[in-house]
């Protein structure tokens, strides 16, 4: 069924003891897309992914990958998905290419190991034991292990963590080529630029809950323009509220940290003058005053900032 989603998560609840890691999460991934699950550490990204991979059984709710139950239909599902875990997952004494060749042998129609090693720059460390690979090399090998079996869906957990800029770009290109060739990619990341550059659809998760969902364009639309204000020392008590009062209701002031805030609305000279005068009144010195379109980082800080303010 080509129209069946690659991944369907509905009402997923996961707990570790008393702690709720995933809280009634719904998530659908269309085929042949790159979907990013974005969120801070501990947001429940890895738990959600590992439930899709069949490592964990849902406490509540259902998870379907390619229409299959990842726990009950594990044996049918596993050959069809590729998994890149966070952290190691190889014998300390195994050589990089030996590990890749081994996983390839477990599949019926694996990719050519030499080609894949070329693409991911693994030849220069092909005979190096796993324990002596750099973090970036281990990540690249992990990605190669995930795709070598020619899966329909790959789950990659923080694929570019610890990579240098060149390796990051190589990885992004590979993930885009996977999508181009009909593979569905689900990745977790806490890099905004990665999600913005790669993803067709982004799901932002915080404290186990989905807080925003959409294409990068949809998520960054809205607040026409923004001003990001960073000051040299913490704002005085009640500062955001007083700035909000000065600027009026058509402008939205969101505190981001004790030294920065985001002003969304018409970024015209009146607004700028008001902000400058207000800084002087409050006795704070602007360190930077950035004007720009709302990017994903603004969206994320805005949403999680509000979430934190409620606590």
């Amino acid at each position: 069924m080509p129209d069946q989603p690659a991944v369907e998560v509905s009402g997923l609840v996961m707990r570790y003891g008393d702690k709720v890691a995933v809280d009634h999460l719904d998530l659908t991934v269309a085929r042949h897309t790159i979907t990013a699950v974005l969120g801070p550490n501990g947001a429940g990204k890895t738990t959600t992914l590992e439930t899709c991979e069949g490592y964990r059984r849902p406490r509540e709710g259902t998870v379907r990958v390619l229409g299959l139950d990842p726990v009950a239909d594990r044996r049918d599902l596993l050959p069809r998905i590729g998994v890149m875990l966070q952290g190691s997952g190889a014998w300390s004494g195994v050589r990089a290419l030996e590990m890749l060749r081994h996983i390839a042998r477990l599949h019926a129609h694996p990719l050519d190991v030499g080609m894949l090693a070329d693409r991911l720059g693994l030849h220069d460390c092909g005979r190096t034991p796993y324990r002596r690979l750099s973090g970036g090399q281990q990540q690249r090998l992990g990605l190669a292990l995930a795709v070598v079996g020619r899966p329909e869906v790959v789950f990659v957990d923080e694929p570019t963590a610890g990579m240098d800029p060149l390796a990051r770009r190589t990885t992004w290109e590979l993930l885009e080529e996977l999508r181009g060739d009909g593979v569905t990619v689900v990745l977790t990341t806490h890099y905004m630029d990665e999600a913005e550059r790669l993803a067709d659809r982004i799901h932002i998760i915080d404290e186990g809950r989905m807080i925003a969902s959409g294409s990068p364009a949809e998520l960054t639309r809205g607040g026409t323009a923004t001003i990001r204000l960073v000051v040299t020392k913490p704002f005085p008590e009640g500062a955001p509220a007083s700035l909000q009062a000065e600027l009026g209701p058509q402008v939205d002031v969101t505190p981001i940290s004790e030294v920065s805030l985001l002003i969304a609305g018409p970024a015209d000279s009146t607004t700028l003058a008001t902000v400058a005068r207000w800084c002087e009144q409050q006795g704070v010195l602007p360190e930077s005053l950035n004007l720009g379109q709302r990017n994903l980082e603004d969206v994320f800080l805005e949403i999680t900032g509000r979430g934190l303010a409620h606590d």
Partner: protein
Amino acid sequence: MTESAVRPAAGTFTPMPGAAPLVRQVLAQASMEARLMVRNGEQLLLAIVIPVLVLVGGVAGAHRVGIHFDERAIDALTPGVLALAVMSTAFTSLAIATGFERRYGVIKRLGSSPLPRSGLLMGKTGGLLVVEAMQVVVLGGVGLALGWEPRTSVVAVLGAVIALLVGTFAFASLGLFLAGALRAEATLAAANLVYLLLMAGGAVVLPADAYGGAGHALTWLPSGALGEAMRAALTDGHVAAGSLLVLVAWGTLGTVLTAKTFTWE
């Protein structure tokens, strides 16, 4: 970027998923396990060097420490050293390797591959048997060079092979139980300690009757049972059914304990 619902053209990464036939997966896993075991220096020490030292040292020095055998020392000791080799690989090496596989997430990684758990167990068993075959060749060769004259009747060879297989089953199940119950470092320490204790006092290298009054009790240990079964086959030319049953019982106990407690991560 829009969501592409169009079916893409065939390319390098076009999905073509599928598991390799189970036999091929198991062979791949067995060869990987055997290679890793042979490559590891400490495990090689345990598998070959210590048994050779025990054999050579035992032949040269047994009478000096007051141990007397019914047969020539080399004929009495070589079967026991083969039993020691099985114990070192199936118990100590397996427990340590599995402990660190859990620690390093290897088993988790393999858990998302097409290799099923049963295939992993078969692969591990295959890897053990490959290493044990190499040990038999090396240690048997050293024994022969020192004048060992084993029984070579069909029953003797069959008895030795069965002892090796059943001994592997018993020790591997206990080794996996240990690796599943303890942290990797604790497994390393415990597996080596148990190996040393059984080597010295477990009637594996020396016949049970060399231990005097305690000898009979030692034949109920997996080490004593394996040693006696090897000696019965290669020195006396018969199959020691009682010892083999003791090993089966230990193997069953180990399997039940492992099944109850083992977690793959």
